[in-house]
């Protein structure tokens, strides 16, 4: 079990060294480690802390790195688990966009597996919403009603979903990688003792092995990893918002609604939700926005955010900011895009006066179209920009707003 270097194969070529995201591989003298070889003087060694990610396997031309896994056996009876589930997140009775995206993607997975697509809907008075889910492609909706489920709270949601999974045994459970999804999916998975893959951006089925291939970014999007849950069921994943297309509504699509009520008394509830406060500075929330206009240090002061806001308003988008602008106190943290702020992937991201530090880039580089407006032609932001405009943002941004107003009416 574990990772090892095949002593007589390794030439010490060092191709693997660069591939290790954790920088754990070193090339050392064979003599020093007591592994002499007639031809090669050097050998790779792998330091402690390896998590067996496998990034080094492919670059090695000689198959000199091996990851040995214990002969694993399924830990549950996999054949009992059937069907694809989508957790349909609702807030204030409204089905959230991410649920429709999951239905779209879940439909494909279910069809490929030849299985049913089901939704789990927790809330109160959700009859209309349940029908909506059917119309968007669900074959079945588990509509669990109860006043305790009206607003999301970790404990009862974890209880209800875990119990339902244990009873119905789905093969795959998809949830949105939203605050709600990421808060309780992990509890559910931990309770069931199954695998959960966070924040996926790509899903596929390996039909032969009947496995879900879950691909997700790590290191802030600098590397991608494909993850499977081979021996446990269900295979659970949270999926990034706005990556997949929403399911198209088909009024005639048929499905069954299984409606149950739960009594709050039988569920644990150790937290008390006292208040929900809307952040009024956010006209559109960043996670949902199709268009984001962001401002950075180049704005020079808080008062200049008005030109950013005006452009965002004209486009119907949200206002973002770089860490520099937030740290300077020009705009609240809730607007910060980047590693320590929010990760966004809108259709259009317009970066104004943002130089593009790596920490910012990892938060927005999966946007469809990136527009960079900056007066420094060497700014790193231009390296990721679909369209680069070198110029003074105080001239370009108003000109852009004006032009858009003309065109969009």
């Amino acid at each position: 079990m574990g990772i090892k270097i095949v002593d007589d194969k390794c030439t010490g070529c060092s191709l693997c060294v660069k591939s290790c995201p954790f920088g754990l591989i070193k090339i050392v003298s064979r003599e020093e480690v007591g592994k002499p070889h007639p031809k090669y003087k050097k050998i790779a060694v792998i330091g402690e802390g390896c998590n067996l990610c496998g990034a080094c396997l492919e670059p090695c031309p000689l198959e000199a790195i091996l990851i040995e896994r214990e002969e694993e056996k399924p830990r549950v009876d996999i054949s009992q688990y059937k069907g694809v589930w989508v957790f349909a997140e609702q807030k204030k009775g409204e089905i959230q966009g991410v649920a429709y995206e999951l239905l779209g993607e879940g439909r494909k997975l279910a069809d490929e597996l030849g299985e049913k697509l089901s939704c789990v809907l927790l809330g109160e008075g959700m009859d209309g919403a349940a029908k909506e889910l059917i119309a968007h492609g669900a074959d079945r909706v588990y509509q669990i009603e109860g006043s305790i489920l009206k607003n999301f709270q970790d404990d009862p949601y974890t209880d209800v979903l875990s119990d339902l999974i244990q009873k119905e045994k789905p093969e795959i459970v998809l949830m949105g990688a939203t605050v709600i999804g990421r808060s309780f999916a992990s509890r559910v998975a931990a309770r069931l003792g199954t695998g959960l893959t966070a924040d996926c951006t790509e899903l596929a089925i390996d039909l032969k092995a009947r496995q879900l291939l879950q691909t997700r970014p790590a290191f802030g999007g600098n590397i991608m990893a494909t993850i499977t849950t081979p021996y446990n069921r269900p295979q659970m994943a949270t999926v990034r918002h706005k990556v997949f297309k929403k399911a198209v509504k088909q009024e005639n699509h048929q499905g069954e609604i299984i409606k149950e009520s739960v009594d709050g008394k039988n569920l644990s509830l150790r937290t008390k939700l006292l208040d929900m406060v809307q952040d009024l500075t956010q006209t559109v929330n960043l996670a949902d926005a199709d268009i984001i206009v962001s401002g950075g240090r180049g704005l020079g002061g808080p008062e200049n955010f008005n030109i950013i806001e005006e452009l965002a308003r004209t486009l119907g988008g949200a206002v973002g900011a770089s860490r520099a602008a937030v740290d300077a106190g020009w705009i609240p943290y809730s607007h910060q895009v980047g590693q320590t702020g929010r990760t966004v992937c809108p259709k259009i991201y317009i970066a104004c006066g943002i130089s593009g530090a790596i920490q910012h880039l990892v938060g927005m580089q999966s946007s469809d179209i990136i527009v960079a407006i900056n007066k420094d032609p060497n700014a790193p932001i231009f390296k990721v920009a679909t369209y680069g405009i070198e110029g003074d943002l105080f001239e370009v941004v108003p000109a852009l707003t004006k032009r858009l107003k003309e065109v969009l009416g």
Partner: protein
Amino acid sequence: MNFIVCIKQVPGTTDVKIDPKTNTLIREGVESIVNPFDSYAIEEGLRLKERMGGKVTVISMGPPQAESALREALSMGCDEAVLLTDRAFAGSDTLATSYTLACGIKKIGEFDLVICGKQAIDGDTAQVGPGIAEKLGVPAITYVKKIEEIDQARIKVERMMEEGYEVIETNLPALITVVKEINEPRLPSLKGMVRARKAEIHMWTASDIECEKSKIGQAGSPTIVNKIFTPPPRKGGEVLLGDPEEQAEKLVDKLRQAKVI
């Protein structure tokens, strides 16, 4: 009160870049840092201790070199440090990590509040915090941006949501994960650094924390990394020339052609 802060040592991210020519990761020098989100957790633990009295214990799971992250926490003012380190932990996914840390926390003893960063910047999963809470059987509140009130028995916090925040109260013991907005971490002090250099770090192995072998390391990890690859780097795009009006016009044309506006 007893506060426990969970931290992770991660590669300093600015070191992880992609070489556009070879499409491989470039790591200039292997600098390791305390996961930035965990610094907020450490700071919040220290502030709570200053307010309420008590002790802050910092715990991590990782290879022996993760000790330096714990020393950093001690130099900021944490009282004790525990490193769960054992080859048997290698290959842990978030479930096994949550279980292992929960076992370590149980061994530390009585606690009132466990504080974690919202996620680690290498894995970005945000799964370990709630996972630990489940394994400890305590309530969890994620994405906390402010602790409004705390006393011996309960805590009232603000949790960040996409469109605002929620005010939530729970009884202790509990676990919270914190976001950047909660505080500004202090730097270590010179005296703290001197103390941290000499301080003993408790090194616990799998047998020390009374864990089930089937639940740790690779055996306790349902997920497997099948493949790791670098995404095709974004190509630098088109530069739009002209005076501001012309640039604006060209951009609007491009966006209309792409049918995004």
